[in-house]
């Protein structure tokens, strides 16, 4: 059995937003509905000033809080550990949105598209979805067909490595080993960070993230 995971190499990220836009195209998401993001973070001062990027997305938690709270089992984890949505079941209650420590979920409320009144071909599927919750799927469909997540395929920085972490011969397993990638505890995400990146900017475990969210 495979277990899917993704490495985010924050040292490689060039802040180009290709991952964000490629994802929006693939899923035809509505304005304001983003499955991933690029967030600049900074430390130090001139002439030692630094800017790098965080790459927020669904961390595909193990024992995900969203799965636990969903009253209708619309949110579920696949056998490979991917947290998925069944849009047919989702009732749009939004409990999962509140429960997600990473704010990685969006309740789609507004029937809007990017060009007012027009649904482009790639938006058609998503245009049927309203009052449901959307999120990153690790491109489960594409992956099951032997493909890779869109953000990963298109990342010019080669920051994202995806695959089966159970298979020691997979690209991701080798990468984790070679780069000493750190697993974000309780999730299916690993990361490599610039040596001097302050801890507060590193990806947090669901528990830490929940605390941070509560503090806000």
């Amino acid at each position, binding site marked *: 059995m495979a277990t899917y995971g993704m490495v985010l190499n924050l040292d490689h990220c060039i802040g*180009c937003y290709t991952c964000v836009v490629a994802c929006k195209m693939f899923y035809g998401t509505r304005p304001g509905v983003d499955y991933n993001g690029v967030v600049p973070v900074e430390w130090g001062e001139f002439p030692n000033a630094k*800017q790098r990027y965080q790459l927020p997305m669904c961390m595909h938690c193990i024992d995900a809080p969203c799965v636990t709270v969903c009253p209708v089992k619309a949110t579920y984890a696949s056998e490979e550990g991917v947290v998925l949505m069944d849009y047919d079941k989702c009732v749009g209650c939004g409990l999962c949105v509140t429960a997600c420590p990473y704010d990685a979920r969006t309740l789609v409320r507004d029937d*809007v598209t990017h*060009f007012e009144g027009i649904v*482009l071909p790639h938006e058609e599927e998503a245009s049927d979805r309203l009052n449901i919750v959307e999120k990153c799927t690790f491109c489960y469909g594409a992956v099951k067909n032997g493909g890779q997540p869109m953000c990963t395929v*298109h990342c010019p920085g080669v920051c994202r490595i995806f695959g089966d972490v159970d298979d020691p011969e997979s690209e991701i397993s080798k990468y984790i080993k070679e780069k000493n990638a750190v697993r974000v505890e309780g999730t299916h995400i690993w990361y490599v960070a*610039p040596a001097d990146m302050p801890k507060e900017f590193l990806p947090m475990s669901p528990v830490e993230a929940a605390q941070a969210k509560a503090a806000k």
Partner: protein
Amino acid sequence: MLKVSRRTFLKIAAATGAGASVLGKNILFQSADPVLAASTSPEVVKYSHCVQCNHTPFCGMKLIFKDDKLYRIEKRSDYNNNLICAKGVAAIQELYDPERLLYPMKRTNPKGEPGQWERISWDEALTTIADKLNGIKEKHGAEKVAFITGDPKEPRSALMRLAYTFGSPNFGTESSTCFLALDLSNKLTFGKNHFMTGPCGPGGNPVPGKTKVAIFWGTNPAWSAPFSVAGLRNAKEKGDCKYIVVDPRVTPTVHTFADVHLQIRPGTDGALALCFAKALIENDAYDKEFVEKWTHGFEEYAEYCKQFTVEKVAEICDVPAERIQEACDILVKQGSPIVCKTAAAWPHHVNGVNSHRAMWLLMPLTGSLDVPGGLKVPDEPMDFDMWNGSPGFSRARDLLPKLDDKRVDRKYVPIWADMEDYYAGQGNLQLNFLPEYVRDGEIKACVALGVNAMMWPQTQEYQKAFQDMEFAVSADFYIRPQTHDYVDMILPAAMSFERACPVARFGRKLFLREPVVEPAGEARPDYRICCDIGTALGFGDEFWGGGEKSEENCLIETLKTSGCGVTLEDLRAASPEGVVIPLKGEPQDKKYETGGLRYDGKPGFETPTGKMEFTSEVLRKYGFDPLPIYKEPTQGPVSSPEVAKDFPLILNSGSRVPMYTHSKQRHTPWLRDLMPEPICRLSPKAARERGIETGDEVELSTQFGAIRAKAEVTNIVRDDCIDMFHGWEQANVNLVHARDFDPISGFPSYKEGLCQVKKV
């Protein structure tokens, strides 16, 4: 809200007869009857390349269609540039943007007022253009008509053909504010521009195991050429090359590559380059044999460099002396070859050409010319011009020299005008003096393709120039009020997936780009627009009668005259794969020894002395200092301290952001959402001193005016700098830039103004 389903959309987009509602500037697709098309239709794959940034990377695209509509854009694997960026992906939104300009329009109100447009037929448009231009030609001479391309760069060769056939040498491009001054710097040094510099050109890329030092100087490929970063990083990880990054900003290029980052004060690059040269010369770390045999003016140059000590330059550039010393040590210890990767930021200073020469000379100084791992000159160059037309097709070689004395820029920038290399198919009018040309009656009309007046400093003067012309017509994808409020007619241009010309070229490999969708509305490819106008002007033979076959005819002529030996049929047969044109002989290094760098085939360089010139004899002849001298920026804390009292911050504009190229893509929702408003970036310290926080509305002012933007407090800029992205209609930074020009190139000084920022 009114929602058009996909099925309706398909019908609308397919219907070439879809009506336009011509109300002010909103030309929308109109609704139509739904057609039946199942969303389960099979996916059809086609191939194209991206033109969202500057039409030289040709990033490969795999286009997935369903029901004849573009459904998805993916990167194309097994292709030369096989990664796309956010702008490339977003091309799908540009293609289907309901605000695209779809029909020729003439204005119904006076120029200078917000344009009111009336749809006209192509026939009417072409007849009017021909009448106006031929009228001006008869009365005043053909040279009074300027032919201008902005973005895209693609149609340049076709517009040259139009200009020169019509009889005007006054063809110019946006590159006369962009990178062509680098080209001029190369020509002053080597006699020819052998090396495509800049983030997109192969020149300047380090080769693993060969290159010893790579200097990324004023360039940020992370945002200007994202496709190149992974390859460059591999090169870094493999060899023992050391990387020096010189940039006033802390860009991702800095953290990806820099062994040393020199975050210099803008405009001081020349001093730093001369300091590097001094270190190399004093430590005997230069290539004596090359210098002795193949260069001119070394003594004078070496003497001049002496004054640029590390301490002095640390002060000029305002970076710690240890860091400069560290960079010097790297250069001295690592040895050669070295490469310098540069970009269009360089010439945006009044001393731009000379600063760039100072940098450029580091390569010949270290013997890094045309050797593996250094700056390689292509073997057996083919007769394409820089825009993948050919001098034969554009007629720059046969017609332009005869028209040369009618160029209108010579009295402003004689070196620029005289150094144009017609043999290589170049002839670029320096457009920065357009207001003067029009004021003096030297230019009375223009044909513009994709021009945006916001690109020029003191934009209003250029807008007035368009307004004052007897006739101005501009082709574009959109109605752009900043420019089109001042022209008489606008023409709808086809976007990249709708056009074929020119070919994509990677060195010796050519790819045909077949149009993959019909042009929207009545949009036409710019190559065709040139042929249609040419035919209407009475040059039917030269433009094959215009019409639908125009692009094909242009491709045939280009390929034929390029001497590449490949025909359009060959390209079609191979498509979507490319065709490689093999070298006839063996690849060669050091072609200056064997005659490969001169038109007459003799050894040496195409310069007055036949050598690589440390002291430029062309500059000397025109009364300039022949050395690559360092001069302080005209506007700056050092040279104009009285101005700096009120305007203490250096205004740095014109650099790239990841989501936009220049003034483009503001219509594209995915990209616009990433930076919805004009952003004025300032450092935490500068912000603290002014009580400014991120998100505050601020006024950015100079001696020349003020604009408003949202503040972004960020580490990426120096404490004494402002970083303001250009191309915003609502906050055009070029309105507050001076019209100070480099006297050699005529380039504006986008990176050296003085300004103040305050919260409003």
